[in-house]
């Protein structure tokens, strides 16, 4: 433990949370979604919109700081932050907001993510539309011409390799999808609330990119989430119990490789994620380990992504993720209940930000799949190529 850890630890809190509905076609702009989630979060924090003086956004968001500041009536926008990249950002966005508060750059920082991820730009589709792809340090020229076009195909290659190295089974991956679905069935706001999923359903679903099937993939979603970060002291005055930000970390692997995502396949190992470095730093900063975590929201763009993170965050040894999930350890009552709103797989894919919101619900005791007496919740934003993560705790 260092003094730097103590300078951050529990100094700030998430005082407000807000979301829109999660749908396949919002009929609203990204901006309207962002505003709706933001207004809800600010009200939840017991603040007036004009009291926001900092805004942190994700680099892939179409909504800018000034867009929101204008309509919120922010008189003195003192802090504007951007965090990259995409799904790696959310935990780090909260961390940047907290750092700004601790540094005295802002008092009440709004953190948001908004996307029409289903009706608008779909990340599951290829963006390779030009006649020539790649160049300019993207390295896409080594991938797209061979039909390697999406994140799902990257994780399919990783899953196949994990199976070959460690004997991981398709029924192991199924358990992750089924667990998230069961949590969604308990959450009236989840897109898959009314749709049960059985192992037969999972195995009979069409293959998307082997060994990953339909239900290994998250739900491209229209929706937005926002939270308000403020000092732990000010959060005491908010209407809801504050969720203290115990620690936040960002991490990358040695030789992280350049580019947005595809070159991660060139790393020495493709079965360990940057989650490993992110986790080690997070636990050190928090003065905690995996056994101190009561519940976790794992970034689940795909089922395999959860399995890798369970290993990298130390809930089981590398290679043992398959038996770990198949023995019920991620279910309610298991070692580490996960994705209690249904996650990206069955609630909605709001690019990691919905996991932050659900973590706050767990700390408040208001989740639709509440872990009894949960005092700590882990949030991961660790797909590729680097990662971030945070731990919230009850005050």
């Amino acid at each position, binding site marked *: 433990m260092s003094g730097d850890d103590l300078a951050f630890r529990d100094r700030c809190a998430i005082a407000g949370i807000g979301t829109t509905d999660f749908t396949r076609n919002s009929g609203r702009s990204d901006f309207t979604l962002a505003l709706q989630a933001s207004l809800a979060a600010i009200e939840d924090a017991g603040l007036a919109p004009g009291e926001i003086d900092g805004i942190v956004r994700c680099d892939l968001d179409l909504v800018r700081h000034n867009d929101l500041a204008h309509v919120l009536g922010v008189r003195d926008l003192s802090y504007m932050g951007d965090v990259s990249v995409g799904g790696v950002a959310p935990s780090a966005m909260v961390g940047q907001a907290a750092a700004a508060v601790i540094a005295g750059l802002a008092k009440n920082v709004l953190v948001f993510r908004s996307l029409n991820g289903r009706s608008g730009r779909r990340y*599951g*589709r*290829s963006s*390779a539309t030009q*006649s*020539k*792809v*790649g*160049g*300019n*340090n993207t*390295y896409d*020229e*080594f*991938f*797209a*011409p*061979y*039909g*390697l*076009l*999406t994140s799902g*195909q990257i994780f*399919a*290659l*990783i899953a*196949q*390799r994990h199976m*070959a*190295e460690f004997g991981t089974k398709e029924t192991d991956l199924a358990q992750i999808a089924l667990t998230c679905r069961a949590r969604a069935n308990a959450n009236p706001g989840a897109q898959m609330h009314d749709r049960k999923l059985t192992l037969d359903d999972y195995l009979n679903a*069409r*293959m*998307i*990119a*082997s*060994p*990953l099937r339909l239900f290994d993939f998250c739900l491209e979603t229209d929706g937005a989430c926002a939270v308000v970060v403020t000092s732990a002291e000010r959060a005491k005055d908010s209407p809801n119990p504050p969720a203290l930000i115990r620690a936040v970390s960002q991490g990358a692997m040695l*030789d992280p*490789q*350049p*580019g947005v995502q595809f*070159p991660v*396949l*060139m790393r*020495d190992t*493709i079965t360990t994620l940057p989650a490993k470095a992110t986790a080690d730093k997070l636990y050190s900063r928090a003065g905690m380990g995996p056994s101190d975590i009561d519940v976790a929201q794992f970034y689940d763009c795909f089922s395999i992504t959860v399995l890798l993170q369970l290993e990298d965050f130390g809930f089981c040894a590398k290679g043992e993720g398959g038996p770990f999930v198949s023995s019920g350890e991620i279910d309610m009552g298991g070692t580490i209940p996960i994705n209690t709103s249904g996650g990206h797989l069955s609630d909605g894919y709001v690019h990691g930000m919905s996991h932050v919101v659900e973590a706050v619900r767990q700390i408040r005791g208001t989740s639709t799949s509440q872990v009894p007496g949960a005092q700590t919740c882990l949030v991961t934003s660790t797909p590729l190529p680097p990662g971030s993560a945070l731990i919230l705790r009850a005050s």
Partner: protein
Amino acid sequence: MTQSQRRVLPETQDPDTGGFWEGARLGEIRVLECSSCGTLLHMPRAYCYRCGSWDNHWKAVAGTGRLHSWTVVEHQVHPDFPTPYTVVLVDLDAAPGARLVGYLDGAPELAVGQPMRARFENVDDDVTLPQWDPA
């Protein structure tokens, strides 16, 4: 659809990676190597992260490797890539640490670790795509 009908073609003139595609036109698998300390620079970058040198050269290596992983794509995401097709990820025998991607029609039987051999697919005057077949 054959490879030559596809429209998704690589940028071949990039200052950092163009040498790879120049080699492919000559029927060579090339990797970038630091001229100062011999570190493999893959993906190709002008600067050596080990020794700080800006001197590097393209080295032709054997077109043989081992299958690191693969996926059969069955859900079509691009009009130029009808399914099913297979994406292979190959570890180069002669350049440990270097991996390349290849495309195979359909869904051939494959196993991690199996030997693979390079094939050079001439698309047009500018583009030759190194491909990888089971050896």
